[in-house]
């Protein structure tokens, strides 16, 4: 692990920084599909979303910190799979690292760290969500041993 970068569970004081990174992630997603157009009230929505996540027992947010600055974030939650085995899923919905900290294995480390946490909480499989067209993400997860299991297809209703 790179010198000076550490991972830890997020707390109330990190909310602002986490919101900023998640908004960056959503704006990146926006580049991939017209149906991922970011809402005008993204900031308010994301703040509520992050607060809820921090107060929930089923989810957690891990931040990557460098020089007291948050430079990466991963949000995950434990979900019950009602129809399938294994029954406990660790679901990663947000994962973002600041541009200058990419391509040095940090994402892999952060993922590993989070999977450990999910395992502690009883997860037997780990899943991740990202836009279909995001080739960088799909390559990354493929390299970490993930495969596409279920697709979400969408279209506008006229």
């Amino acid at each position: 692990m790179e010198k000076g970068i550490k991972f830890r569970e997020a707390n109330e004081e990190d909310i602002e920084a986490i919101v900023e990174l998640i908004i960056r992630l959503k704006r990146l997603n926006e580049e991939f599909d017209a149906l991922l157009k970011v809402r005008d009230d993204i900031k308010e929505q994301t703040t509520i979303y992050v607060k809820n996540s921090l107060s929930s027992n089923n989810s957690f947010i891990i931040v990557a910190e460098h020089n007291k600055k948050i430079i990466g974030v991963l949000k995950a939650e434990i979900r019950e799979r009602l129809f399938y085995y294994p029954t406990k899923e660790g679901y990663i919905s947000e994962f973002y690292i600041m541009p200058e900290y990419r391509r040095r294995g940090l994402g892999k480390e952060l993922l590993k760290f989070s999977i450990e946490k999910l395992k502690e909480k009883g997860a037997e499989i780990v899943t991740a969500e990202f836009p279909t067209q995001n080739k960088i993400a799909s390559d990354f997860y493929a390299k970490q041993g993930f495969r596409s299991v279920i697709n979400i297809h969408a279209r506008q209703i006229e």
Partner: protein
Amino acid sequence: MEDEKDQTQKLYELAINYSKIYKGKISIIPKVPIRDFNDFAIIYTPGIAGVSLRIAKNPDESFELTGRWNTIAIVTDGTRVLGLGNIGPEAALPVMEGKAIIFKYLGGVDAIPLTIKASDPQNFENVVKSLEPSFGGFNMEDIESPKCFYLLEKLSNELNVPIWHDDQQGTAGATLAGLYNALKITDRKIKETRVVLLGSGASNIATAKLLISAGFDAGNLIMIDSKGILHPEREDMDKLMLSNPWKYELAIKTNKDRIKGGIKEALIGSDVLIAASKPGPNTFNKEYIKEMNKDAIVFLLANPIPEIWPWEAKEMGAKIVATGRSDFPNQINNSLIFPSVFRGALDAKSKKISNEMIIEASKELAKYAEEKGLNENYIIPTMNEWEAYPRVAAAVAYKALELGFAREKMSKQEYYEKAKKIIEESRHSLKVLIEKGIIRNYINYL
């Protein structure tokens, strides 16, 4: 300003009339004598089949037995022609014809204009790849950014002959040459020099990359685009990562002090400004130059009108000012670079033109000016100083040899003699053709 417009309009009209008379600027003239029709038995069939059989056995012999060794293609899709934008491949043709003449006159290079109707970058890439057997190199021209970065990168890896994008590398090479001497005059060290690059199009992205290869500290460079100063935390970084990874890379590497804002903020405490943005005048507030360090170096490369007028930059404290124009001192012109870089690359039968070779060209060009005697108004040779060309060619060829790209191995002196002879012959034959009236001189009557 009005005068400038009038002048441009006048030149437009002259060029149109000129083109009506000449109907194109280049034509093929044989290099071999034709005494009677019997000669065709060796020029063409049946004799020529012997040559074909040899080349079929060893395709590299096409560099010995045909004109391939000295022939390049000028390729464009017409998507960013001069300052005119996407005017299409047909409209790009007169420009490429002109370019071909500069290649011939200054570098002795036979350059064939090929303007290509290409629907997408892959299509263009495939066309160029298919043309490789005919040419000793390719000069890409007037292709929009960021497509040009993709094509240069991709084709450099795929071709076994040099490929060059003049709007990137030619401008960057000339800029570096001028900068070497400007730094000498103002007693600056490369490592410590702080450079602001205004405009993040093809030429400044290439310049930034070349400066880094030449030993400038990437962190000391500050790049500015239409949205302001580039830095790794800018909001549009992810968008850049997808749309222009070359600019994205530089945004991460440069600006170690994380300066944010616009031109003024960038210039505070800087040593050099390289502006290659939008034509002036008044592209930016000339007062900003005052924010620069003492003895500032200011390159104003927008054409046809520099971002601010050179005298304005001087009034605001710049010590050395260069522009892209021949009617002001210190013209940073890619024509100082590309003819000799290709001359050298072709003479060495180089497989590539690398950044190291461009840096060598810049150094040699700078050295030529230095030997003549530098001053604030002479940091780079002019296009008239043709003796600089074979010297730069030899430097480039020798670098290609050192880097292992050369198929034709000679001493630096031999490369020099070869380049000088070819360039002299090219100029001489043109002179004779004009004297004999074969090239007709109508220019005085326009």
